[in-house]
């Protein structure tokens, strides 16, 4: 493990029990998060990006799902083997998470202030009530809420979507975690509010030096906020690269297809868009070879029989495709 790596996911496999039997929602996923960096995980619905996030903090729904294989290394220890009471201390204190819909993530019968203060009483039992109040107010102010005193006394339904998401971020950051996992943090918000929230997250990240895993389906959000990107498809990572490399020279046919199919603000309008034909394969009926083979424009025979491995294809880049030549200078991963 490199020195500046704060989180390393090794060979993660997550299984779900469904009515069609056991399926793999996450299939041999590997990635690293460097200190002070923002890693984006991009992919469409059902690709396993949220499940990956939930398995990091061990919040997978039980008993229908489990980590079947792999390691999640944080500060030299495998989180998957930690006892439950230790996870309680790590969750929120060291690794915090913000969710897509703050309305469902916040408790509707408690005020925002009470939920803020609860974080402190859980992780810092010695703190006095006055300190908890003061720290909560301070956190709300830091996330750009102009009148924290008023917001503290409100119930979640009395707050707008933007303010609710700010309260969630304030709660997540109140223990100054080393890692923040943000699962579609702005998907439910309007673009002008989204811009505010993303700016806020980046600003807080710069000041505290924390590392962020930003999960989103929006490639625009990835391009503007992340340092490194992993693209997921049907439970697997198909390509990882630094953000410039990925958007300037996408290698995997899926990434390439995604990028050209987005309507652009600058492009000439009312013309047909390039598309990716077909749809994502069903998790219970995964094709034998490459999972993208049925939709891939460049498919060759080997794609249907042999699973492509995620291998190094250039400086700091990996891709899982039979058609991309392996970089000879790179050591095997």
């Amino acid at each position: 493990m490199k020195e500046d790596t704060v989180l390393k996911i090794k060979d993660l496999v997550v299984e779900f029990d469904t009515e069609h039997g056991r399926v793999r929602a996450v299939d041999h996923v590997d990635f690293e998060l460097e200190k002070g960096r923002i890693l984006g995980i991009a992919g469409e619905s059902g690709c396993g990006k949220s499940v990956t996030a939930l398995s990091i903090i061990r919040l997978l729904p039980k008993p229908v799902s489990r980590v079947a294989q792999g390691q999640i290394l944080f500060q030299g220890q495998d989180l998957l083997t930690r006892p439950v009471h230790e996870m309680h201390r790590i969750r929120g204190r060291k690794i915090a998470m913000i969710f897509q819909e703050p309305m469902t993530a916040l408790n509707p019968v408690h005020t925002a202030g009470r939920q803020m203060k609860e974080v402190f009483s859980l992780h810092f039992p010695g703190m006095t009530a006055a300190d908890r109040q003061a720290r909560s107010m301070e956190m709300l102010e830091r996330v750009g809420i102009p009148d924290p005193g008023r917001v503290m006394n409100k119930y979640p339904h009395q707050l707008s979507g933007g303010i609710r998401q700010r309260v969630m971020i304030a709660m997540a950051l109140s223990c100054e975690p080393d890692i923040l996992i943000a699962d579609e943090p702005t998907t439910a918000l309007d673009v002008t509010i989204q811009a505010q929230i993303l700016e806020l997250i980046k600003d807080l990240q710069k000041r505290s030096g924390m590392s962020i895993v930003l999960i989103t389906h929006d490639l625009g959000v990835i391009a503007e906020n992340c340092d490194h990107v992993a693209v997921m498809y049907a439970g697997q990572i198909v390509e990882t690269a630094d953000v410039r490399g990925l958007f300037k020279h996408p290698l995997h046919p899926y990434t390439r297809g995604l990028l050209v199919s987005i309507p652009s603000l600058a492009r000439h309008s009312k013309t047909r868009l390039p598309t990716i034909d077909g749809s994502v394969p069903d998790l219970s009926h995964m094709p034998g070879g490459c999972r993208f083979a049925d939709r891939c424009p460049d498919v060759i025979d080997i794609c249907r029989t042999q699973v492509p491995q995620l291998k190094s294809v250039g400086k700091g880049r990996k891709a899982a495709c039979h058609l991309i030549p392996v970089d000879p200078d790179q050591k095997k991963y």
Partner: protein
Amino acid sequence: MAILEVSRLKKYFPVLGGVFLRRIGWVHAVDDVSFSVEKGETFGLVGESGCGKTTLGRCIMGLYVPTEGAIKVRERSLSNLTAFQKKNLASFLQMIFQDPFESLDPRQTIQQILEEKYKIHGYDPAGLSKEIQQLVSRVGLSRDSLSRYPHEFSGGQRQRIGIARAVSMNPEIIICDEPVSALDVSVQSNILNLLLDLQQSLGLTYVFISHDLSVVRHMSDKIGVMYLGQIVEMADAGDIYDRARHPYTRALLSAVPVPDPDADRQRTILTGEVPSVENPPSGCRFHTRCPHVADICRKKTPPLIAKDDEGRHVAACHFF
């Protein structure tokens, strides 16, 4: 000649409160909106949640009765229609909804869903099987999908069924209310292509409602930007993006994340939240968040006036 004309349309919803649920205020969902759409054109309506774009679409469809103002299709007013006339309107106006999961009856097969439309309009479905088969192949579905139920289809395929239902009555105008918002990127482009193809082959006119500025730009000939129930800027699609006048339009455009890490962006980040439509701000409704606000903005409502020589680009701002 404009095929659809909306003039000075207002839709207010009462706010009820107190023990006896008396009216304590009005929500000004759509407040004095006028525009017209030419045949074969796409008019894009863009704005953030709560700006009134969906209410406006529903008023045009006749699902809401407007508080004031007029809607004309082919110069015929849509107010005071008899029930019979309203039913006939279906061959002019149809709608595609956002959620392909909720807008299809889960207990009917696709065949039944499509037949129902014909039955309501007095056709005998027995003689229609060929027409229905043509319809599904036109929207890119196989014929055997007719005997299946909505839950057996993916989101994109369901949206195709919704589109098939909308074009089945050979309408002239289709109101598309966030037709691709619930879909993934790779599916979205397929549906947008289908809508463009149908527009070309059937000569359809679209009112395209969306919060996604890139999608609206891609689909529209003319665009209206809405804020708190009003159109604040309206122009040809290219013009809105290249020469935006209103500070809100500019902020909205600058807030859209662009999938290009090298894009040269000058971002205007708006402060504050969208005010409530129950008590819209005085003067210019955008003044509480506008970076260029001056005294006049708080007092005087800016009219929607032409900002170019031909009068095709209008904006409601005292300055730009």
